[in-house]
């Protein structure tokens, strides 16, 4: 079917897209989403909009609210990759059997220093993880968390550790 078969539907949607276009660009710029990563975010939100158009009362508010949320999720996902790589690296480093004794001691000292600057809850969780090799279900049981919440708590603690070890916050994109 050609788009011309529904000129009214198309023109109303087209008008709406034209109207929100500057705001979409501003929103992506505000959240510093790289252009190449905006495509999926925008397409998913707009598909949801056209499928649920009848239930949505204020389309612009809905679209901007949805995109704001998706941008935050985008950064959360990016940060998770970072935390996961820090986690995997710490596990790897602490378990490295070929490290010379002095180097091994230094690593333990560095990690201990970093852990000591974390809140008590994170300190005990990460200590069990890195020094005693507990996996998430064991951590949940030992520390009294539900299996569903241990992943969130671990992510929060890893975030705190990453901040200690590397820096704080999310990336500031360079222009260009």
């Amino acid at each position, binding site marked *: 079917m050609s788009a011309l078969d529904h000129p009214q*539907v198309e023109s109303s949607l087209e008008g709406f897209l034209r109207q929100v276009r500057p705001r979409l660009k*501003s929103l992506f*710029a505000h959240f510093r989403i*790289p252009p190449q990563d905006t495509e999926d975010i*925008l397409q998913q939100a707009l598909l*949801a909009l056209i*499928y649920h158009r009848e239930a949505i*009362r204020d389309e612009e508010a*809905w679209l901007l609210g949805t995109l704001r949320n998706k941008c935050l999720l985008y950064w959360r996902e990016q940060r998770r990759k970072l935390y996961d790589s820090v986690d995997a690296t710490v596990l790897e480093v602490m378990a490295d059997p070929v490290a010379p004794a002095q180097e091994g001691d230094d690593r333990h000292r560095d990690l201990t220093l970093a852990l000591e600057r974390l809140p008590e809850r994170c300190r005990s969780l990460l200590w069990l993880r890195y020094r005693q090799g507990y996996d998430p279900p064991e951590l949940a049981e030992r520390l009294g968390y539900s299996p569903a919440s241990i992943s969130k708590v671990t992510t929060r603690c890893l975030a705190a550790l990453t901040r200690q070890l590397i820096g704080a916050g999310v990336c500031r994109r360079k222009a*260009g």
Partner: protein
Amino acid sequence: MSLRHPKPDALEQFVLGRLGSSEMREIARHLLAGCRRCQDVTETLWEPVEAFEAPPDFAAAETANDAHRDGYDIVLDRVFERILATGSQLAEQRSVGRRLYEELLQCPAERRHLLLANSQRFRNRMLCERLIEGSSEACFEDPRRAIEIGRLAVLAGDQLAVGECGGDEGLAGLTTRAWAHLGNAFRISVDLASAETAFDKAEALLNEGSVTLIEKAKVLSLLASWRKEQQRFGEAAQILDRAAAIYKKLGQWSLLGRTLLQKALICGEAGDGEGEMKLLRQALDLIDPQADPRLFLAARHNLINALNEAGRVREAFALLYHTRPLYLQAGDRMNLLKLRWLEGVVAFGLKRIDQAEAAFREVRDSFRDLGLDYDAALAALDLAGVYILQGRPADVSRVAEETLATFQSYNTHREAIAALLVFSNAARMNQAGLELVREVSDLLKRTRKHFNFHPAQPS
């Protein structure tokens, strides 16, 4: 520590989480080893997350000109083109979905499942959407049909692939809603075990996290009704708070109003009259009477009732006076009956007994004509209250006998029949007071949703 420092670009990609896992680990190891120089570089790439919490300044951003703008333009052009193409096909897809729905429901029940499971033609997103809608529409008219259509919706959703729904989100949203509506149909049919199973499934899908916010809010709203049914009022209120937060985030004020209206009902059922009235007033501020007149009327109706229940009869009367045009505007018989009933209730509160009697009598008879015997029984109990105040014991006794006989003919719900027996005996002995009438009426209102009010089938 590795002596080879990563390039600044690689550090930036690392902070963005955009490198492959081995490169990510390599840089993490380098930074963890304490390379001050590289740590200083990464420091410049970071800024606090809180910067995103502030709303974007659109006016300033629109005039700004940064290097990404052209990049955004290219992406927006591409996405808009695809969306416009999809949008223009949507009306046709909806009409195909409706045709398939009609065709499916005309088949014998046992063949419907076979068709959905085996026929490629019935693998259609819009058919699934229409089935969800159909289940929801049938809920109050014919709960058994709502369950059957709800089951078909779940099956139709299970047959679909991600690509047929425009991505993970589309499919996850559809299947989650299908399960939630099936749970809702079970809830209304008082099949509590099946409702629990269906809502568990919907909740599990919701927790997987790929459902759009608007769909999540819809499912949460159904889930809250289920928690209310289970008398888990605190949880129901918390779930509605989550839905309300989503609508707020999305700027959907009217839907936020609807959610507050739902939460007000929970407060009412939990006996928190003040909380109920507060929420109803907030809901009324948010619901647009032009865009959603029925919802606005429902909120006003509930507020008048709540005011009356709280003994603030004059306020209820004043609000009823201002709301009457809305009932008349709605114009359908049920809304006009609700108006007349409320007029009776408020007149009773104002001790205008003759007016109350006329209203209750009219409402009872109309419900009987419509075959809505449960509502007729409730109106009859209100009428009995009038007769008690008028000192007409014979009429009280007659109303009690009639109501009891109606319930006995349906042979359902022992608790209600037992209460009506007590009332009937008390009336016969001229000992039925207003308090007893109120207790029986409250019990019938509470148990109404568990009531299968159809003529008893021979066993």
